[in-house]
């Protein structure tokens, strides 16, 4: 036979359980808009009577109320893993898109002002000199137009250099951020490991760690897995960044100027492990920056050098064959064969080799130079090919980014659907637990009344 007062303890256990469940619901509602918060669910278990029949533990088969066995975090590790992966891809492509927008802005084609137009004006200026080889003003205008083209090429190169430098600085800043995040995750691991061992709840700390893991994945494309002891292991392409309570560090090494990068690509920028010095396999934003520094910008800088070299070579090849107003020949129009070093060789209008015969106003040479405008394989064509490549590459990044952002959005929605707080749902829970509490109180009152009858009114 069960104890007379067992009904009170059963009701009490329910009062406790419903109140705790109400508190958890309150916590969920309070964090409805907290980023990275995972809704929590109270796991209630009915307390059974004794299951092992012994002499002193007899049971009437009715349970002893309710207990809260767990406050569970509703989180799907698979969805989290996918989320980290897609966010990393998205971060990579978003950064790539930004880089290409900047490069496209640098060249600003097609327009009536950019380099292609300036080249056209240069050929026109040669044609004008061909028409008036005796006019020093027109020759001076040609030299000025040459300087304009040189400035155009160089300022494009400088803009690429500035973009490179900005990315290089950003890479350092991101590496520091990665190291800080890794350290934080290791610290959270320590705390979570201890709390788990002590049986304390770690839900909010785990949420915090998930937010940091996500940030780390966006920056580096890292993957993570939760270990049995509650710690998160973080990997960069197979190598551990955070393992248990220890975090490793990465750093950015190599060239610090675009010129150094292109001159010696083997010693170019790389993300490396600080301890071993071997290359770290990164993804996400850091990979985009690394690719931009080692591949994208150097490629367009080289193409621009190619345009400058082509311009200098084709113009010089003809110009050296002509004669200036002073009758002297063999002069080069441009010096330097890179985008950075390209210059107009002289500022004396008499030196423009318009004539193909010394001492005459025969302007055949200037005319031949003007014909470079339509020469196949000339600087104009080299430049157009480069812009076409830029367009194709930027467009492909644009499209991939657009698709990836949809995928990422869907993954985020799936994660949010699973782990997020639904206020309607919480309201329903709120009422359920509220009613549960009220009902438990009612049971207590009933038992109380029963005992009142038993104690105060019986056998009086």
């Amino acid at each position, binding site marked *: 036979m069960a104890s007379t007062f067992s009904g009170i303890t059963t009701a009490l256990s329910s009062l406790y359980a419903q109140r705790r469940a109400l508190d958890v619901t309150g916590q969920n509602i309070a964090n*409805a808009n907290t980023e990275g918060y995972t809704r929590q669910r109270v796991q209630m278990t009915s307390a059974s009577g004794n299951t092992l029949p012994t002499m002193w533990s007899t049971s009437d088969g009715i349970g002893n109320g309710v207990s809260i066995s767990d406050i569970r975090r509703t989180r799907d590790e698979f969805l989290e893993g996918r989320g980290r992966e897609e966010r990393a891809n998205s971060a990579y492509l978003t950064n790539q898109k930004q880089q290409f927008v900047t490069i496209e802005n640098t060249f600003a084609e097609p327009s009536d002002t950019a380099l*292609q137009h300036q080249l056209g004006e240069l050929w026109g200026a040669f044609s004008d000199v061909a028409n008036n080889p005796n006019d020093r003003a027109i020759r001076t205008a040609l030299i000025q137009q040459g300087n304009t083209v040189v400035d155009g090429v160089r300022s494009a190169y400088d803009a690429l250099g500035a973009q490179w430098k900005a990315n290089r600085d950003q890479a350092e800043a991101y590496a520091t951020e990665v190291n800080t995040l890794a350290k934080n995750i290791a610290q959270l691991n320590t705390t979570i490991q201890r709390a788990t061992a002590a049986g304390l709840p770690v839900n909010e700390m785990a949420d915090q760690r998930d937010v940091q893991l996500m940030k780390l994945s966006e920056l580096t494309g890292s993957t993570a897995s939760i270990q049995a002891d509650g710690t998160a292991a973080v990997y960069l392409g197979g190598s551990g960044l955070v393992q248990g309570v220890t975090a490793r560090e990465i750093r950015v090494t190599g060239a610090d100027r675009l010129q150094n990068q292109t001159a010696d690509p083997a010693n170019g920028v790389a993300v490396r492990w600080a301890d071993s010095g071997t290359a770290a396999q990164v993804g996400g934003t850091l990979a985009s920056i690394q690719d931009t520094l080692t591949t994208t910008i150097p490629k367009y800088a080289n193409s621009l050098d190619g345009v400058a070299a082509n311009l200098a070579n084709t113009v010089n090849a003809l110009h050296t064959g002509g004669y200036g107003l002073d009758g002297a020949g063999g002069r080069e129009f441009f010096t330097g064969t890179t985008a950075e070093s390209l210059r107009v060789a002289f500022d004396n209008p008499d030196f423009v080799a318009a004539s193909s015969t010394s001492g*005459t106003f*025969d302007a055949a040479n200037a005319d031949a130079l003007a014909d470079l405008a339509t020469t196949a394989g000339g600087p104009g064509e080299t430049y157009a090919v480069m*812009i076409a490549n830029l367009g194709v590459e*930027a*467009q492909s*990044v644009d499209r991939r980014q657009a698709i990836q952002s949809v995928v990422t959005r869907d993954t985020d929605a799936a994660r949010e659907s699973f782990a997020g*707080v639904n206020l309607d749902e919480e309201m329903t829970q709120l009422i359920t637990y509220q009613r549960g509490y009220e009902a438990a109180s009612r049971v207590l009152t009933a038992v109380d009344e029963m005992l009142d009858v038993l104690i105060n009114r019986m056998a009086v």
Partner: protein
Amino acid sequence: MAMQLRVTDGAITNRVLANLQGNLTRVGNLQEQLSSGKQISRPSDSPTGTVSAMQLRGESRAVQQYSRNASDGLGWLGVIDTALTSSLSQTGKVRELVLQGMSAGTASTADARAALAAEVENLRNSLIGVANTKYLDRPVFGGTTTGERAFDAAGSFIGDAGTVMRTVGDNSKVQVDANGAQVFGANGSGSQLFTVLDSIANNLRSSNTAGLDADLQNLDVAIGTIKTNLADVGARYNRIETSRTAADDRLLNVKSQLSEIEDIDLPNTIMQMQLQQTAYQAALQATAKVIQPSLMDFLR
């Protein structure tokens, strides 16, 4: 917990925000197209379009230059045409004077012939002046000479044999000068105009009728040469003018092609803009409706 598709406020908010962003981006793109009038503002908008646009711009620049070169060439040929026409009328006048000097009746006296000779000499000086006609500071009969004149005071050619060419189309170069040695006869040749005129003046003074006869033949050769050159200049003038018209036509063509590639279709873009704005407003209204109600609104 039973697995069922959950929808959370956070998920709705994110999705709605993303959709609104997408809508707004499209409105922004259309607005950029409308305000710039261009559908290609960067290479990635259309890589092939960009390359075509660059090519067409280059072509447009070249064709404009052809047109300019042609105008300059027409300037040269116009001046030469005038000079040659004037030369013809003056040499015609000389021819009359020679015929007058050869007829015994009208110029029987030495004084009369001296007067004729003096007039021929005047015409000769005037013709040397014509032969030194300049266009933009260059003697048009002097070839590619850097000198001021094509003929010296004595009437001998001091220019060179170089030709002045103008590019008036792709691989189309036209000579725009007329060489003095060709037009007025080479130095030392019997039919060089100024030598002939010199000889005429001398023969008139010395009443050398036989000499005048020979002079007349040489003069006719010289006049014939000028006429041939005048016809040649006229032909070249026409050729350049045709090229210029072709260049202008092509410029128009190139510009319309460029516009086809680069410019927006205004009615179409405005239509799309309206549609996009309507879509955006609908999205906003839907958002306003979706986010508001929840169970809380119905609980006391």
